[in-house]
Each structure stands twice: as structure tokens, then as C-alpha cells.
């Protein structure tokens, strides 16, 4: 069979991440010191794992309501008030999903029509563009810059808006740059959006991991909640990546459409994970504080180290990545990463993995122990010395 010709061209033509080959090489090599991993090194806190185990012992192994366990939705609503001062109705404005990713997918599906333009800040996480393309809409990246602390500026946003613009994706705190949006940035963005019909998909999966400045959601800015789908989850803040659990909060009319998509595609999010998540929200605040403090030390350590060995590096204020510039080496991001991997066995992610505008940068994750980061920095320093 000629499979290629039988495939839906929109799926077939999606680029598998352009640097897949590089990733495969890294996975195959031995004794690699990696700063390439986008997930926490901490284990899920024991009391959360135990709650999952307990639910299994009690044979809580059936589907839940499509929207997720009522108890969990109530805890999510309580958490949103406690941490970000945003009020959501657990019955109609919260949907529990399979990771934040599913929520992003569902939101794009229900909001975006063929031909619509979807704006998103770039560089950013890799899933937005393909999902927009699958929805036959037009992805429009808005480039953010180190000089603006990788924040989306109101001017750039205003310039990108056309009468076809349907949705703005705000991925902050940002993977890979570590940029955040302060209340002032958000007010300015809100000012541009008020009076339009543009929706906001705010991917706040790293909301708990900001350093110094507390995270502010765009939904907490006046007039924004009615047009914002807030997506978050348990992966990064509670170190629960493999549990695959996230959620969306937003206006009931949008959430009810997303619930349909979720119902037909997924049924309900994993039940064991939902019980564990209830425990996380009830008794996990201290775990987050502890992990955040560790990340913060590592953050200062890696940024200081990168600068010391001669790479200019924006001071990340959120997530767990540093995004140093490698322009001074004259190499492209991919060349830099490939040569570093082959010659000194350190794995970084080329900035171009997060969009063309990531050229000239590399992403170094600091979800690693200080000793691990130190060894990686020593090797990178040697590498730079030999260039």
C-alpha cells in the first residue's frame, strides 16, 4: 500500500521535530551528562504516591465523570483562589485532562476554525504550531527577545493582530527561555485585547516555578477571565510527569465544548492520578516550596556558571531552564549542540527546537543536582576553550 498517499496530508506533513536525529544520537551515547531533560528530577512526593496506591487498594479503578472527579475539580477551584485569586465554578468551569497537553489540544480544537490565525509567543514549547496546523488554522509566531526579558510586548502583539486573529497563546512562565510576564506586561497585553473577540490560551504549567516574582495569571487581570482558557497541570510543580494529569479552567460555554472533545477522545483522565492529585492539592504546598527552593539554587548556580565560562545568559525568572546565547561562538545552535555532544558528551537542546527564532541559543535544563550541573559546566567550558 502507498501509505503516504493515503494519509491525511495535514498529519503527514507535520514536521517531526527537526532535530529528532540529534535526540536519537544523544539517547544512544553512553556517559552523557544531560542538561536536556524537560522534567523534574525529584520523585513524586511520597504522600501523593501513597494516595494513588490507596485508591488502587480501594479498587477505585473505574471511569470518573468526564470532567473529572468532583472532589478534584473542587480542589482545583480552591487552589486557583488560594494561589492566583481567580474564581472558577468546579461544576462548569473546570475540566480535568490528560496532562496540560490534552487541554491545549482541546482548547485549540473547539476555538479555531480553518483559516483563523493563532498567535503565540516564540520561542516556546513545541506543541502549539502542529496543533494549530492540524486545525487548518494559521500559526503566527510572535518573536520575543532577550532585551525584553523574553516577555511578549503589547506592541508586537498589536502589530500581529489581523481581522483573522482568533486566539493568542501565552506560554508563561516560558519553556525554553525562563521568561515570565509581570502584572505590568499583562495589563498592557490586556489593554490590546479588550474590545476584541480574541481568546487567550494561557499555558501556565510552570506557574508554581517562578523565582522572586510570584506568578500572575492573565485571567486575574480585569476583563480577561471571560476570554481566557487557563491550562495547568501537576507534572512540573508536583513532579508528576508520568501521571499525565492536567486541567483547563475557563468560561463555561468554552469548557462545555472542550468537555465534549475530551469525552469522545479520552472519556476521563486516569482515575488513580486523579486521586493522587487530590492529595497533592490538599497537602502538597510545602512540597512545591521545597522543590522551588532547590530549583532556585540551581538556577543561580547554572546562570552564574554559564556567564563565568563566557556565554551571555538572560536571567530566567521561571520554569527550570536557562537559555544562554551561543552567538559568540559563531556556530549555529544545532552545530553547537552536536559538536558539544560528540566531543564532550554534554546534551543540551538547540534553541531552534522551539522555533526558528531560537537560533543562536541553547536550552540548558537545571532539573539536575548541583554536582551534575557543575560537571556539565566544566565540560562546556573545555569545549568553548577548544573552539
Amino acid at each position, binding site marked *: 500500500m502507498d501509505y503516504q498517499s493515503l494519509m491525511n496530508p495535514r498529519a503527514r506533513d507535520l514536521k517531526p521535530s527537526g532535530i529528532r536525529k540529534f535526540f536519537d544520537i544523544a539517547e544512544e*551515547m553512553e556517559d552523557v551528562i544531560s542538561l536536556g531533560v524537560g522534567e523534574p528530577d525529584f520523585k513524586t512526593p511520597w504522600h501523593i504516591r501513597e494516595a494513588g496506591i490507596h485508591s488502587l487498594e480501594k479498587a477505585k479503578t473505574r471511569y470518573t465523570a468526564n470532567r473529572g472527579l468532583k472532589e478534584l475539580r473542587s480542589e482545583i477551584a480552591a487552589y486557583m483562589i488560594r494561589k492566583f485569586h481567580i474564581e472558577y465554578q468546579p461544576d462548569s468551569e473546570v475540566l480535568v485532562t490528560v496532562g496540560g497537553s490534552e487541554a491545549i489540544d482541546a482548547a485549540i480544537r473547539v476555538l479555531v476554525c480553518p483559516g483563523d490565525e493563532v498567535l503565540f509567543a516564540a520561542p516556546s514549547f513545541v506543541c502549539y504550531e502542529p496543533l494549530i496546523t492540524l486545525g487548518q488554522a494559521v500559526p503566527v509566531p510572535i518573536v520575543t527577545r532577550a532585551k525584553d526579558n523574553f516577555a511578549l510586548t503589547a506592541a508586537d502583539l498589536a502589530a500581529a493582530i489581523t481581522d483573522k486573529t482568533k486566539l493568542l497563546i501565552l506560554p508563561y512562565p516560558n519553556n525554553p527561555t525562563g521568561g515570565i510576564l509581570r502584572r505590568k506586561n499583562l495589563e498592557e497585553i490586556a489593554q490590546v485585547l479588550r474590545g476584541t473577540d480574541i481568546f487567550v490560551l494561557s499555558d501556565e504549567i510552570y506557574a508554581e516555578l517562578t523565582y522572586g516574582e510570584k506568578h500572575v495569571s492573565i485571567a486575574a487581570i480585569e476583563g480577561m477571565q471571560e476570554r481566557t482558557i487557563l491550562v495547568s497541570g501537576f507534572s512540573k510543580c508536583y513532579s508528576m510527569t508520568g501521571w499525565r494529569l492536567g486541567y483547563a479552567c475557563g468560561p463555561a460555554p468554552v469548557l462545555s465544548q472542550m468537555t465534549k472533545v475530551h469525552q469522545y477522545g479520552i472519556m476521563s483522565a486516569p482515575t488513580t492520578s486523579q486521586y493522587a492529585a487530590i492529595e497533592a492539592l490538599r497537602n502538597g504546598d510545602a512540597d512545591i516550596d521545597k522543590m522551588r527552593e532547590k530549583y532556585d539554587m540551581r538556577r543561580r548556580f547554572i546562570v552564574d556558571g554559564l556567564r563565568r565560562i563566557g556565554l551571555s545568559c538572560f536571567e530566567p525568572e521561571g520554569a527550570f531552564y536557562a537559555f544562554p546565547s551561543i552567538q559568540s561562538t559563531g556556530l549555529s545552535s544545532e552545530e553547537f549542540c552536536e559538536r558539544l555532544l560528540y566531543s564532550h558528551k554534554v546534551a543540551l537542546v538547540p534553541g531552534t527546537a522551539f522555533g526558528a527564532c531560537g537560533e543562536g541559543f541553547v536550552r540548558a535544563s537545571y532539573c539536575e543536582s548541583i554536582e551534575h550541573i*557543575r560537571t556539565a559546566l566544566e565540560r562546556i567550558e573545555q569545549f568553548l576553550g577548544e573552539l
Partner: protein
Amino acid sequence: MDKLLTLLEKNARFTNAELATMLNVSEEAVASQIKELENQGVIKGYKPLVDWDKIANDRVTAMIELKVTPQRDAGFEEIAETIMEMEEVESVYLMSGGYDLSVLVRGRTFQEVAMFVAKRLAPMKNVLSTATHFVLRRYKDMGVELADKKLDDRGTISL
């Protein structure tokens, strides 16, 4: 101070510069805090954590429970002091519960430790009884896992 101590407890070989970066203070501040902690006797010393099982060295450790008669006026202090002066003794703790002193003893062979208990500890004037427990394997010591590091199951790269 607490954060500094926690970091040093994890790795006493962090340089002052590294500690300063992690704690977001100056290098001088770290140096003076460490000096002060040393002067106050809060920091008693710095030692490597050795996994002796890794090198073919004959070493055995035993935890010995001692029941003793406390002395008028001196309580347990006197006997504890006598015991801690013995070279073979690694640590001495006063315990609550079923016995009084817990003594960690190190020797080259089981025989040597057994003889130490029989000849030195058991006959002491106020020692009522001893129970010797040999350590068979150390999994974790002073907060550090001694088993060989498990492989990271996260893979090398993910976005």
C-alpha cells in the same frame, strides 16, 4: 545559616563562591558565616563519607546496646565519657527506651569487636548488660545512599 548548613551537610566541599551563588549572598558573607559557625562549635569538622566496603579493607561495625547503672550526681555522663575515650568507639548516644547507651564500635574483624565488648565494655563497673548487633550492610549513611547510583530513568533529552 540554616540553608548554609544544609548545603554543607550535603557537600562540605562546595567552594565559598559556589555557596555564595546558590544562597544569593556575597562570598565574604559565606566565609564569615562559616568561620563563625566553626568558632561557635556548630560546625565540628569536615570528613569524607567513605564506603569502606568498596576497598578490600577488613572492617566491621557493631551497634552495642548497653544497660548501665546511672551514678549518683554524674548520671550517665561519667560512663559515657569513659567509653567515648576508647579508640574503637565511633559514636556514643544516650537513648530513651529499652536500654541506655548506644555505642558504635569499629574493628577489623568480628572477633576483634566481640573481644572488645567482652573484655572492655561488659566488665565495666556500672554496665549491667550488653547486646551486640553487627552491621551487615550499610544502605544509607549520613543522608547519603551508598548503593551504586541508579540510572536516571528520564532519558537524555525531552522537550
